[in-house]
């Protein structure tokens, strides 16, 4: 983990080079209040869902950063803010040195949008069933006006199809003629069409069977090496994260609770939530048939607990945890937001 948040440290150019995307205090709130009349007549109150609540994260160039967490933790919202589908409520979204949150004109965003693309979970829902594959893949090329000669576009589409392991002739077929894994390859080809630097993959293999999942994960890794791509992978699957990610951020109720290099996170997880997640995942190679499941459920993000959001389920919770929200503190091993870690109350990790 790169220290980009050093108190008052001047940003160095080297750092600019190494970090593709920088998030600072990023928040995305949704107003889910009852309608105005209900508020006026029935005295109902405004309600704000803090889907993302103050996230600091650096995404280094050419590497894979992953965000993991359970449903409702805000990981997909971060992804959508990153590709400018949502505008941040507060905080900075700095992409290649430019704060995209401050760009208000659609046109000003266009050159940045070309450089970032997104792959979605469901390859059945994300491809237009009425379009031939060639047209689907060519869409970003045409939308961004990258090429206008039809033959050049067809050539580029053929090249992209072969790059993701399909045949050039597949451009003339429709999405329903392909299996789930092949459809995900089409989504990847479309995402690569505008030659992006940054790919956001939201649960890229969750809808696929395991044998196909392995093919897609290998493909994503090969493409990263060949094209120097930077990935942000959003997933709930820790085994997928273990394979694909260089750096991992663990989210809980809209906040980052721990960020660390992948090897460190799995060898020495520190945040009690990270530990519980790793302990809970059933593992084929080392099954624990007497596993003690984590108690409780994720609280509603509409009404998160005070202080540390995890204190209601945390085995190490103390009085302070219910009161003060812990800050994400950086050190040599990464960053962790936990009072127990800071106070040295964390027991040794043994799995």
């Amino acid at each position, binding site marked *: 983990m790169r220290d980009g948040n050093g108190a008052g440290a001047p940003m160095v150019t080297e750092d600019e080079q190494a970090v593709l995307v920088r998030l600072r205090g990023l928040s995305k709130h949704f107003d889910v209040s009852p309608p105005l009349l209900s508020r006026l007549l029935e005295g109902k109150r405004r309600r704000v869902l803090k889907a993302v609540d103050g996230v600091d994260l650096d995404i280094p160039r050419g590497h894979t950063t992953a965000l993991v967490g*359970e*449903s409702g933790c805000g990981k997909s919202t971060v992804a959508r803010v990153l590709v400018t589908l949502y505008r941040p409520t507060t905080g900075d979204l700095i992409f290649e040195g430019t704060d995209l949150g401050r760009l208000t004109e659609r046109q000003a965003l266009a050159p940045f949008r070309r450089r970032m693309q997104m792959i979605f979970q469901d390859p059945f829902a994300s491809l237009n069933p009425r379009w031939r594959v060639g047209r689907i893949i060519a869409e970003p090329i045409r939308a961004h006006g990258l090429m206008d000669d039809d033959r050049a576009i067809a050539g580029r589409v053929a090249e992209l199809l072969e790059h993701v392991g399909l045949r050039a002739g597949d451009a003339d077929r429709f999405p329903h003629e392909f*299996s*789930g*894994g*092949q459809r995900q390859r089409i989504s990847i080809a479309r995402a690569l069409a505008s030659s992006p630097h940054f790919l956001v993959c939201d649960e890229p293999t969750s809808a696929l*069977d*395991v*044998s*196909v*999942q*392995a*093919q897609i*994960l*290998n493909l994503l*890794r090969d493409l990263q090496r060949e094209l120097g791509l930077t990935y942000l992978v959003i997933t*709930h699957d*820790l*085994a*997928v994260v*273990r*394979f694909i990610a260089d750096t991992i951020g663990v989210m809980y109720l809209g906040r980052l609770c721990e960020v660390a290099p*992948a*090897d460190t996170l*799995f060898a020495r997880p520190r945040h009690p939530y990270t530990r*519980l*997640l*790793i302990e*809970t*995942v*059933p*593992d*084929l*190679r*080392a*099954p*624990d*048939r007497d*596993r*003690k*499941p*984590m*108690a409780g*459920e*994720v609280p509603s993000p509409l009404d998160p607990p005070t202080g540390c959001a995890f204190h209601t389920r945390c085995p190490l919770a103390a009085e302070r945890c219910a009161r003060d929200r812990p800050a994400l503190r950086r050190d040599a091993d990464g960053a962790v937001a936990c009072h127990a870690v800071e106070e040295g109350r964390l027991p040794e990790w043994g799995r």
Partner: protein
Amino acid sequence: MSDPLLSVRDLRVDFPTRRGVLTAVDGVSFDIHPGEILGVVGESGAGKSQTGAAVIGLLEPPGRIAAGDIHLEGQRIDRLSQEQLRKVRGRKIGAVFQDPLTSLNPLYTIGRQLTETIRTHLPLSEAEARDRAVQVLGEVGIPSPADRLDAYPHQFSGGMRQRVVIALALCVNPRLIIADEPTTALDVSIQAQITALLKRLCREHGTAVMLITHDMGVIAETADRVAVLYGGRLAEVGPVDDVVNRPLHPYTEGLMACIPTTHERPPRLAQIEGSMPSLTAMPPGCAFHPRCPHAFDRCAAERPPLFDHPPSAAACWLWAPEGARATERAAS
């Protein structure tokens, strides 16, 4: 060993369509013993859910059992009338599906759904049925169950709803529970709670479970034995530790190798090339032979039967008594 609770022999499930008959399950045989958890794994389209639906008599039309037989406690249940089947289904077989919302009626309180089920199958009064409902809800881990009887399904979280569905399946003490992807829609922390619950109930009541899932991790931690399906056929069946760590069938071998783990980070994942054939284009011989690294002439020509290799059995010519691997193993 005791007599099997459920015995399925040469089960075939057909779906007649305008373009011909599709065979979703093709010659599948297995047993489940009392108190045992049998995992049924396979990729989408492998026929695992159809096998479960056939056992419980809930095949979606036009699907039908075209061949084979199913015995529950010695009684043949695949030829029962709808009325007889309904009794067996409620009393002896319980079901838990992936999405708890589809198993619960959103318009009725969970107390009403539980007491109705209980009174349909057990000779209890309304008050006794309510007591039984409270007891079962407590058993599946619903906090203050007596107060929750009058709540509607939407007032529960996803994990709690799945507990209610399990309570509904358990309330009349069935002999067998068919659980089709019971944890797939749930978060990992909740998933572990539900599998722990299934295991505990199995142990305490001697209920057998047919656990259908695509998640090998869940199987490895929950099941006693596992049946691996491929293209509607049984590829391999055996004790879970043997199937995971000493697979016989090349498909099982490939499947286990391509599953990522949190314990290590290989440079590449092993992958099985291609994908499972669709039911309309099932290859001749062994369904796996076009993707199999060990395939030879016979595999494309003749469909392999299930060869016994205790403690497991596999449908693969390599394991025929004169087959390459069987000979190797005998020699070593």
